[in-house]
């Protein structure tokens, strides 16, 4: 069956309920505001058909001021008394206009993408920046993969619909000579295989002591989750088994619909792995001195599956939720 414009699992049932606050009852109902479209891409059709069918990127050039605008967001030049412009085919290389933002917390439509980068590329010969997704082929996407002026190449998705997501940019430095020269470069030409797990350092006496402390704190946190409605809500409807590897040993975090179980050693099966040298990172997280998200962003903590940032957010909320409920 074809994918729906609104996935079925987003749609709530028709229902109403009474919610109590300060001794008063209030009625609330499940509602929605939806409209379906058959929406023309109008004057942008050439650009989007270029992406979808021709594997080309079109810009538009003003014959009077020579400004080249990409994407071609206007047919008439607003700076030259609306003179008609002409389409030009653009190169698939350029530089980042600025450091792109990396989104770690997204709403339902884009949650499966996190972390994702949305950047702007000034293609060779262009005067404006093209909004595109940015990716790395080398593991976790952090804010330090790209910055202003990073050379990039545009890559075409294997499956295209005539949308902005039909293309994305990767750093030129991650491509070999053949990939750099190939036009168009396709998604399937790249190797996005899972990045290699980093080598964990040696177990020192200090790290062993820290591991023991971290394990004890985690077990206390798990016990507190049972008493904390906020923490239970953080983990509601979620199931994951996570192996946390440190230089001083592994431990297992099992999330099961509102509960957290912590055990020493590696689990039998894992949904994903988190790895770090120093278990002090876990202590800092539970002591409100750092967030796991931030440790991943700065490279101190490695995760095996990018999209499990969603689980990491849930873990990040736990210490604060517990403190708010049990303080």
């Amino acid at each position, binding site marked *: 069956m074809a994918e729906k414009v609104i996935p079925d699992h987003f749609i709530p049932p028709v229902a109403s309920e009474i919610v109590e606050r300060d001794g008063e009852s209030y009625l609330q109902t499940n*509602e929605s505001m939806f409209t379906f479209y058959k929406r023309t891409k109008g004057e942008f059709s050439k650009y989007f058909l270029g992406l979808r069918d021709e594997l080309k990127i079109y810009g538009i050039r003003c014959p009077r001021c020579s400004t080249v605008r990409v994407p071609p967001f206007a047919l008439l030049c607003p700076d030259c008394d609306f003179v008609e412009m002409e389409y030009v085919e653009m190169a698939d290389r350029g530089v980042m206009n600025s450091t*792109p933002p990396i989104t770690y917390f997204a709403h339902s439509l884009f949650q499966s993408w996190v972390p994702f980068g*949305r950047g702007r590329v000034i293609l060779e010969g262009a005067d404006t920046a093209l909004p595109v*997704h940015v990716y790395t082929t080398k593991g976790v996407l952090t804010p330090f993969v790209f910055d202003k002026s990073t050379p990039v190449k545009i890559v075409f998705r294997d499956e295209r619909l005539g949308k902005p997501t039909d293309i994305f940019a990767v750093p030129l430095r991650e491509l070999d000579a053949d990939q750099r020269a190939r036009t168009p470069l396709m998604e399937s030409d790249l190797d996005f295989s899972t990045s290699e797990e980093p080598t964990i350092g040696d177990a020192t006496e200090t790290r062993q002591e820290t591991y023991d402390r971290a394990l004890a704190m985690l077990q206390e946190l798990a016990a507190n989750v049972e008493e904390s409605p906020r923490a239970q809500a953080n983990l509601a409807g979620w199931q994951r088994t996570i192996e946390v590897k440190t230089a001083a040993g592994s431990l297992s975090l099992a999330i099961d619909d509102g509960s957290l179980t912590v055990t020493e050693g590696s689990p039998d099966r894992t949904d994903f792995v988190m790895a770090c040298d120093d278990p002090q990172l876990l202590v800092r997280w539970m002591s409100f001195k750092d967030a796991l998200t931030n440790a991943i962003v700065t490279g101190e903590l490695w995760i095996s599956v990018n999209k499990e940032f969603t689980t990491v957010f849930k873990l990040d909320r736990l210490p604060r939720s517990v403190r708010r409920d049990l303080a």
Partner: protein
Amino acid sequence: MRRVGIVGAGITPCKSHWLERTYYGLSQMAVKTCLEDAAVSVKDVDAVIYGIYNDIFELSAIPEHPLQGIIGMTNKPGMRVTNGGATGAYAMLAAYTFIASGLYDTVLALGVERSTDCFDFESMTQTPEVIKTIGWSADTFFERELGWTASDSYAEVVLAYMDDHPEDLKPEISAKISEILCQQAKNNPFAQRRDEVVTAEMAMSSRYVVYPFKLLEMCVYSEGAGAILFASEEKAKAIAANTGQPIIWITGIGACNEHSVAGPDYTRHKYMGRIWSDHIASHKAYEMAGIKDPVNEIEIVELHDAFIKQLQITMGEMGFVPVGNTDALIEDEIMTPGGKILVNPSGGLTFGGHFVGGSNMFSCWSARREMIERELSRGLVHGTGSTVAQYGVAMTLERSG
């Protein structure tokens, strides 16, 4: 143009979710409080400007229409303004213009917004749906489908600024500002996070939402309403004589919308590393008010702090610290307690609350309140909004008497 003054203001408490009132009820609360403050009847009000940002939040494409009768303005002019985050500021600009032009003598600016009626039934929480709702504000052909959010849009600007000024916006400075705003919110009886304690250390260690924005260094989602009553000089003096409250005159007002598409030349496209909208809007207002040296002439700023790092850049753009060295806000004790300028005594949108259509009324309410209570002479109210901080509005204030 005629002189215009503020003679009354009222806001509701800012809440993360108002279960007890719809936006109809919130509007009535704010208008009633505002008119009581000015000691006038709604019968004395000539026209109303509504600030409501997002149709989807209110579940209506003409959300202001039911308010006209509800707030007692039947058969009078009413006009809605919607300009993204700067909706409230633009609504006040429209109210000002209605009077300055000579068309009306008393105009009410009413800002109201819901947000957390929106609910994500997958996560069984509100936030993802609120983010999604705001996401419909993006360019629908080239950007929305890339996962545009308000946060990542402002992060783009801040990151580009950091490209140009890597030594500025140090993490400990933003965290300190968050702590200061948290403390200041305790003086605001309507602040959403009045009872919360956020230290610089907590802000520093809070998680990234969108790099470089951390959870405790950004605004909250709120529901509420705010109303400001503007009057012509003659009317304002009559009202002030009755209430005994000083008039807060609007001495300057400026607005600017940048291009939405990025390019290196700010005069033709959006230069991502600056917030020219704030710069141009504030300097237009200064020119109108005759302000030459804002840091020595303005005592209080109520600034639209969607994000703390954006607050810093905006303060630079408005001339209070150099662009490129906005850390001077803390390092040179410009906005520390007892510093040269009182910035966001309401707690700002970060700790006070951010009901989008009326947030700038909330800021205006606070600026007026502080100017009267602390007997400050000159103030500034600011609003920012739309993608990549495209819109900016600044309004300079002066207390009479």
